């Protein structure tokens, strides 16, 4: 008489398939992100500290609410006074904005790309990242249009030239740009006036500011809000002196020998439609001759 051993678990094909698909995805992710760590201490810390952080957020929010009521009455007085001032400014701004708009439109019509020294390829943004987790822009030109990996991308917007990012992936007819606001994007940059060298990184979202680091504290007195930050041109990744952003906030950290500077990007990415991809190895004349 045969004995049948009963196991409490039964694995169906769907369970095995799930494990296979998860393994494939997990291994791909491990290779593409170059990391996989199971550190239980870190994971435990992350979980518990997240709960702790949320608890703090709630208590802090309650405290802030009570404080806000008091501030509200003071703000009301300030608001009335400022509203009158604002009306005057709005009238002035309206006429100013109309002139600027017309001016910008005319400048763009003058085929800006021809004025750039290097060979360049105007392209249109066809898609953006669907979620806010990773930043990328896709343009309608690829290797067939002369685009190569690591080419810098700039844009001309509202009369300003600004760095958009660089090409990270090239398809036959489309390319992917890593924009300057991406977390993975680090650019060697200088403060235009003082020529101090630092690194600019993105915060991962086009709504957020850029961050500049490694600027020594001793130059603090030479810096001003609105100072322009430009690319340094070192390493040959980007052209020299392309504006990245303007200083909006300077933080002095006690524990750090460098300043923490926040920048407002020159480019308004939510309104960006067309970009210019630059081929640094060829001059604009080459293209004209070829044509």
């Amino acid at each position: 008489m045969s004995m049948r051993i009963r196991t409490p678990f039964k694995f169906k094909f769907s369970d095995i398939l799930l494990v296979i698909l998860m393994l494939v995805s997990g291994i791909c992710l491990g290779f593409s992100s170059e990391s996989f760590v199971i550190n239980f201490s870190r994971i435990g810390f992350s979980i518990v500290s997240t709960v702790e952080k949320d608890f703090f957020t709630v208590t802090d929010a309650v405290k802030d609410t009570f404080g806000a009521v008091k501030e509200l009455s003071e703000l009301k007085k300030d608001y009335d006074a400022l509203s009158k001032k604002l009306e005057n400014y709005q009238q002035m701004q309206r006429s100013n904005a109309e002139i600027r708009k017309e001016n910008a439109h005319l400048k763009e019509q003058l085929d800006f790309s021809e004025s750039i020294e290097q060979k360049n390829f105007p392209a249109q943004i066809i898609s953006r990242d669907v979620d806010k987790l990773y930043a990328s822009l896709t343009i309608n030109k690829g290797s067939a249009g002369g685009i190569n990996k690591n080419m810098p991308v700039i844009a001309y917007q509202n009369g300003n030239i600004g760095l958009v990012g660089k090409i990270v992936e090239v398809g036959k007819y489309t390319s992917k740009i890593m924009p300057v606001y991406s977390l993975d994007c680090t650019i060697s940059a200088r403060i235009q006036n003082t020529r101090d060298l630092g690194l600019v990184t993105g915060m991962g979202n086009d709504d957020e500011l850029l961050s500049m680091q490694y600027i020594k504290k001793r130059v603090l007195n030479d810096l001003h809000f609105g100072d322009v930050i430009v690319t340094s041109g070192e390493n040959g990744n980007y052209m020299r002196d392309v504006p990245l952003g303007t200083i909006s906030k300077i933080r002095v950290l006690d524990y750090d020998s460098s300043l923490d500077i926040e920048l407002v990007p020159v480019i308004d990415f939510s309104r960006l439609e067309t970009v210019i991809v630059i081929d640094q190895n060829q001059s604009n004349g080459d293209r004209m001759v070829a044509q």
Partner: protein
Amino acid sequence: MTKSYITSILIIFCTVLIETAILSNISILPAVPDLLLLCTLYIGIINGKIAGEISGFISGLFLDFLSGAPFGFNCLYRTVLGFIAGVLGISFNFEGILMPSVIGFIGTLMKVFLVWLISLLYPNVSVMYHLISVSFIFELACNTILAPLVFKFLSMFKSSLSLKTEE
């Protein structure tokens, strides 16, 4: 069976194109509604675990090709979401307005949880989901509101989508 899978893949592919080429370019939207997630959930619910995890994997694959995320990132959590939808699908009546909305709401929260879990296991995967942010709340609201509409729309293809043989 083959017809069901081909229809599922076609629907997923069209949804990816709509999300990436149209919705992502509307700059006034703080976030893009995750229609792909809703499609995966629907397919998982009507066809069970295998179809759910495969459609989740394929939808993630398309997204990984088109987005800046490291390859495998979307595949991983969408496969799990598809599987879970397949497991729970049999127990729920997903017609009407309320249940699809609840499914869309819970599906989005689970997506956030899985993304967070992945970021713990893969230190270089830097994710930017903030629960208390306009973009997340907008996405959550959109997915909740759009779920009944998407489910209703997909039910028009139910005869082509559903598998004849049960798992």
